[in-house]
């Protein structure tokens, strides 16, 4: 079973890396958007391998569909501007992007290779104990949805509610910003009064 697991992991990881690279390097922005769908679905596959079914399906629903559809919408609405060449090597912005990506890469490499081992031991943020086999078996048969739901509505109910309030504020803000122009368009007299 271990061999099959590894086989699937490396297959998905290979697809993920290829898809992520093509998001950056493909010449046209629509191709980037499509390969981003592939990248997100591969990430969902890795979540499945980690027995995190709820997170995997959320990944497909929110990232692979929700986010990318909005991106494709944006590409459509901007017309054929998207045909412009996106990737210019040695431009200042490219070098800047490389610098930021490099910093992130080093940080992740440091974490993955247990660079923070001593830190983890002191603060116990990164728990190093693996879950027991029984826990993994119940996860595989019952799924993680129930556990996540219970945790969200008991232990983490306050952060959850604060987050929902934040999202509500964002939605209301978007509505207000979208509505402002239309008021002026429909009722030009109010604008005249304001100008007086």
């Amino acid at each position: 079973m271990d061999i099959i697991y590894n086989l699937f992991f490396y297959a998905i990881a290979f697809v993920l890396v290829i898809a992520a690279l093509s998001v950056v390097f493909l010449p046209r922005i629509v191709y980037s958007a499509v390969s981003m769908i592939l990248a997100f679905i591969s990430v969902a596959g890795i979540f499945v391998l980690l027995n995190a079914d709820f997170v995997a399906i959320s990944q497909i629903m929110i990232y692979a569909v929700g986010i990318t559809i909005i991106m494709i919408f944006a590409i459509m609405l901007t017309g054929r501007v998207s045909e412009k060449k996106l990737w210019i090597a040695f431009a200042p912005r490219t070098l800047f992007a490389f610098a930021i990506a490099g910093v992130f890469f080093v940080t992740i490499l440091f974490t993955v290779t247990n660079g923070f081992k001593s830190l983890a031991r002191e603060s116990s943020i990164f728990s190093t104990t693996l879950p027991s086999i029984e826990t993994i078996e119940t996860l595989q048969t019952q799924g993680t949805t129930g556990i996540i739901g219970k945790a969200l509505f008991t232990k983490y109910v306050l952060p959850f509610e604060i987050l929902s309030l934040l999202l509500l504020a964002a939605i209301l803000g978007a509505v207000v910003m979208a509505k402002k122009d239309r008021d002026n368009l429909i009722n030009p007299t109010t604008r005249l009064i304001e100008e007086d």
Partner: protein
Amino acid sequence: MHDIYIEIFNKLGIPTVLAEITWPVIPFIFVAILLILVVIFLVLMERKVLAWLTVRKGPNRVGPFGFFQTIADAIKLLCKEDIMSKDTNKILFTLAPMIVFAPIMIIYGLMPFTEKFVAINLAAGLFLVFALSSITTVGIVLAGWASNNKYSLLGGMRSAAQAISYEIPLVIAVLSIAVLAGTLNLSDIVIAQAGGFSDGAFFSWNVFSWNIIPAFIGFVVFFICSIAEVNRIPFDLPEAESELVSGYNTEYSGMKFALFFLAEYAAMFIMSVLIVTLFLGGYLSPFSDYLSVTLFQNIIHNQNILYIFMHIEQGFWLIAKTYFVIFIIIWIRATLPRLRADQLMSFAWKFLLPLSLVNLTIVAVFKYFSTLMNG
């Protein structure tokens, strides 16, 4: 289905490892055969019922009563030339029908057709169904964009706007089912609807514990939204032939068009199966026990044969209920005119969304009191 497959291999004396390795192929074969059969029958049924409702004869030339009309159409589509106009985006144009078709094929594997006949029995199956069905929207949008045709683009945009708006009341209506059943596993949702309302000859019928009774408003909302999700009249704005030629699939021909066509009818069937599974008791018989069991238990004493009979009956009930739902959908198509785009949006956001929230509240209160009474 997994258990049955492994059991067959064990009885034949073939090692279990071989069964486990070959297993993943089986659901796909099962799904592919089922899908083709269902769509061929569905297209014929739609044309026949529509003809009957509008006092016409319908297809009646190929085979007895026109039964082979769909097969003839399928062969015609297979033989057609695959035309691709000069300014299309070749890669995305080819990819789009596949993105539309593949997720629907996976959803078929998740459906509980009988107690044991579930290809992939997942703990979060219901959630995955909606995640996958939303992927098809991406395919339709891409098809519209890649065609490089203004009608296709408008069709794709309309489809995306419609799918995003109608998915919200749809999912909130489904949330009430998750509250009632306490699980997202589709098989468990069906099993949770068995048992009836109380003991006794009449009240122990399964009909009284179907989810449609506490969640009737949710059923109506789900029904309307699922028609909108599969782009059927009165919500067929993405392919409104009087305004947009044929919408997102205007430029398609041959097998690529056939894939869209297949996906559309397959999605219609799967949505009907989902309505039946969530609200109408799935494969459960409406009576307190399976008819075959009550009829034959005194004649046939072999438990295995009775069990097989029970399975066939479960399949019968599911198919019967599903085709009843499909009949209603076709009936609606023959009756109602198409909505306008602005009516479509305000209907979803100002009417269906509050209604689905009301339904969720009612169901939550119902669930609270029913658990209180049952201890």
